[in-house]
């Protein structure tokens, strides 16, 4: 028996030690500036894959580790030579370099298009160079990549482009989560997950575990020492942690696959519906749990083991986690989704471990008090439950927001603010004898109600962001400015004809769609600005309306390696497209700077000369 005990202590210690050791090693990095020990070898910092799209068209996928960046200008094809192959890269982020001025860099994964004149060769040689934000650089790398039509790469690429075309919001979110990770704030993530676990522990989800646990602790012998009770509940909690940690590992391993698959409109709608269904269970419309037969079976099975065995407790913890997982499925799914986007197995394991540890805190407390500290069930538990319901509905709205028009989003958010505010008694009068807590809640409810109303007003007045619902009421309407006169082009041929006819005039081609929020912002804020108009004087303005996304529209977009609007391409006097192509929204000031940098017009005589 003692041997058993010993081996289990080893296991528990191991499980307990691993994540904290890792977290600690990350933690210490936050405070020491000594970056020499933890930088990546160049091939881990930057990875490049090549895949053939069709006979004369390939794609290169650069994977950039968080905290690293590649210089756009220094990505070059070595083989085949420049006249038989042309590489097109998306616009990068601007980095200010004291010596070279503004440099375009990629902090994130990047797709480059390679077009061959003639058939694609068997081999592609690409040269690239990048640095780490930790203050070191890697020398230029030259990689030979065999070009073969690998199905996995092809599908990953196509699903990626679908994602980006589906909404212009998705890349921003990708960027955000990337930024959070590249900031390297592991402890923030860990603490966040631990906090979420603590909150989950306050839901009735953990309740089914309490009788199991107290059964284990008390077992057949009525009296257990406090230390022993704690050890037992620790083993039980760690068992629960094991299950969740494994789930985290799986999410980390699934990587982009999961998050890519989850970003199609169908998946977004399904996901949102799941959250809605789960939130309704939080409001108590129905109970979600495993069939009681299964639950009873496990319960009976567990009682077969004599209480007081560390291993059986551990196992019971692992199984109980499965039992209650439908109850916590929604937050769990959110966490797993988040982790799968990071492609980080270790992070997944640590995050889910801290989540489950947070969930286990009350269990540990119960153990430590040897069962005397069982919380009393009451109305407060249901309040927490409803709070989670509201949060889940919020998640549901957030999940489908990329495919909803902004007005609909605003209305949904408004509903989500106003209804809970009413439940919080925002408009019921307070009795004169109201206590502090009641008054606090009322104040909070009134704020929520007012914000909800503001959101509704925003929806009616055509606001473009839930964060600034009243912007249209505040801003003086720039209606007096005439919109720029764009000429419409519909196909690649039409564009070429128009470019030829431009006769040495520089040309601007703007991609527009009715459903593209940023395009409307361009119209409203950028193209109306006097500085922009001055800069575009004498430039032939073309616009491609890709609202319906016809094959011709797609061909036009593809020609400039754009996934969707907004996108603005400039052509010089010779009718050649110039780099960089503007992708995404730039405010008037930045737009003017970009246009100036392109030097569209020959240097004109100074006005006073």
């Amino acid at each position, binding site marked *: 028996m003692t041997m058993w005990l010993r081996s289990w202590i080893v296991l528990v210690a191991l499980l307990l030690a691993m994540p904290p050791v890792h977290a600690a090693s990350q933690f210490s990095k936050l405070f020491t500036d000594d970056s020499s020990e933890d930088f990546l070898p160049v091939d881990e910092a930057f990875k490049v894959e090549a895949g053939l799209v069709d006979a004369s068209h390939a794609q290169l996928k650069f994977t950039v580790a968080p905290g690293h960046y590649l210089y756009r200008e220094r990505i070059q094809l070595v083989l085949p030579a420049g006249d038989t192959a042309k590489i097109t890269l998306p616009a990068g982020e601007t980095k200010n*370099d004291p010596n*070279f001025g503004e440099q375009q860099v990629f902090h994130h994964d990047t797709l480059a298009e390679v077009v061959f004149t003639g058939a694609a060769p068997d081999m592609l040689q690409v040269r690239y160079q990048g640095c780490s934000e930790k203050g070191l*650089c890697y*020398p230029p790398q030259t990689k030979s990549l065999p070009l073969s039509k690998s199905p996995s790469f092809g599908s990953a690429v196509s699903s990626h482009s679908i994602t980006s075309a589906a909404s212009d919001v998705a890349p921003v979110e990708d960027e955000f989560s990337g930024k959070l990770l590249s900031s390297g704030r592991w402890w923030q993530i860990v603490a966040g997950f631990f906090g979420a676990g603590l909150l989950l522990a306050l839901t009735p989800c953990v309740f089914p575990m309490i009788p199991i646990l107290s059964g284990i602790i008390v077992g057949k012998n009525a009296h257990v020492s406090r230390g022993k009770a704690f050890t037992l509940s620790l083993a039980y909690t760690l068992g629960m942690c*094991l299950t969740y940690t494994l789930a985290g590992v799986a999410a980390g391993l699934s990587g982009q696959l999961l998050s890519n698959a989850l970003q199609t409109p169908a998946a977004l709608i399904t996901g949102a519906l799941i959250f809605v269904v789960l939130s309704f269970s939080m409001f108590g419309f129905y109970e979600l749990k495993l069939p009681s037969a299964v639950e009873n079976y496990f319960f009976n099975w567990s009682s077969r083991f004599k209480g007081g065995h560390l291993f059986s407790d551990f196992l019971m913890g692992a199984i109980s986690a499965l039992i209650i997982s439908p109850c916590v499925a929604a937050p769990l799914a959110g966490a797993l989704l988040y982790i799968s986007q990071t492609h980080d197995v270790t992070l997944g394991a640590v995050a889910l471990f801290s989540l489950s540890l947070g969930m286990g805190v009350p269990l540990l407390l119960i153990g430590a008090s040897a069962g005397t500290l069982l919380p009393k069930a009451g109305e407060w538990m249901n309040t927490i439950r409803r709070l989670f319901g509201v949060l889940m509905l919020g998640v549901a709205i957030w999940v489908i927001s990329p495919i909803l028009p902004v007005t609909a989003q605003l209305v949904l958010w408004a509903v989500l603010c106003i209804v809970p505010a009413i439940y919080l008694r925002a408009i019921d009068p307070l009795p004169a004898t109201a206590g502090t807590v009641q008054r606090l809640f009322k104040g909070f409810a009134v704020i929520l109600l007012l914000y909800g109303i503001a959101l509704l007003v925003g929806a009616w007045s055509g606001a473009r962001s839930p964060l600034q619902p009243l912007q249209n009421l505040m801003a003086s309407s720039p209606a007096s400015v005439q919109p720029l006169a764009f000429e419409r082009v519909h196909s690649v041929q039409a564009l070429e004809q128009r470019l030829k006819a431009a006769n040495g005039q520089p040309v601007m081609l703007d991609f527009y769609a009715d459903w593209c929020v940023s395009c409307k912002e361009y119209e409203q804020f950028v193209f109306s600005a006097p500085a922009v108009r001055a800069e575009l004087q004498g430039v032939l303005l073309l616009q491609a309306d890709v609202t319906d996304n016809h094959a011709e529209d797609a061909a036009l977009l593809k020609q400039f390696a754009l996934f969707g609007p907004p996108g603005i391409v400039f052509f010089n006097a010779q009718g050649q497209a110039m780099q960089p192509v503007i992708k995404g929204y730039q405010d008037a000031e930045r737009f003017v700077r970009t246009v100036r940098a392109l030097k569209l017009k020959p240097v004109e005589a100074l006005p006073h000369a």
Partner: protein
Amino acid sequence: MRNVARVVMTVLLMVVLGSGFRWLYLNRHQFMATESALPTAADIAPVWATTLFDHGGKAYPLAQYKGKPLILNFWATWCEPCREEMPEISALASAHPQVAVLGLAIDEAAAVHEFIESTPVSYPLLIAENEGMPLAETLGNHKGVLPYTVVISAQGEVTQIFFGRVNRQMLQSALNL
């Protein structure tokens, strides 16, 4: 019944422990400080046989620096952290003439020339476009990063290596100045 349970548990225990240790093993570099071993005097023997040229074509046989404390700074014009640290190295070189300082550029002569025009430094900058990275590797730069700085004592021993940006303080304490 109890025996079956015990066997199952033992197997489970072995699986869990085994995967735990495997995970530890696979991630060992995260737990163990990767103390980079310094190259020995024998390792760096080829360095002394190297001759490099500055952008003007003047030859610098590295053997002439043997017997003096020496700082070798590998850099490139396209490497921003490298350029950031150079004024500090330059100040150290002019403050301590008894220490030899060399900058080895993984770069073209033209780029280095242009750089010196705008940012003069007080120590020779040698062109090592092709030979630089192999040389740095001989001197312990197994990860192939820049900037990379090596401190060699008067006895010809590598006493310290720095991956990434250095400052004057780090170099001075490495040389006991």
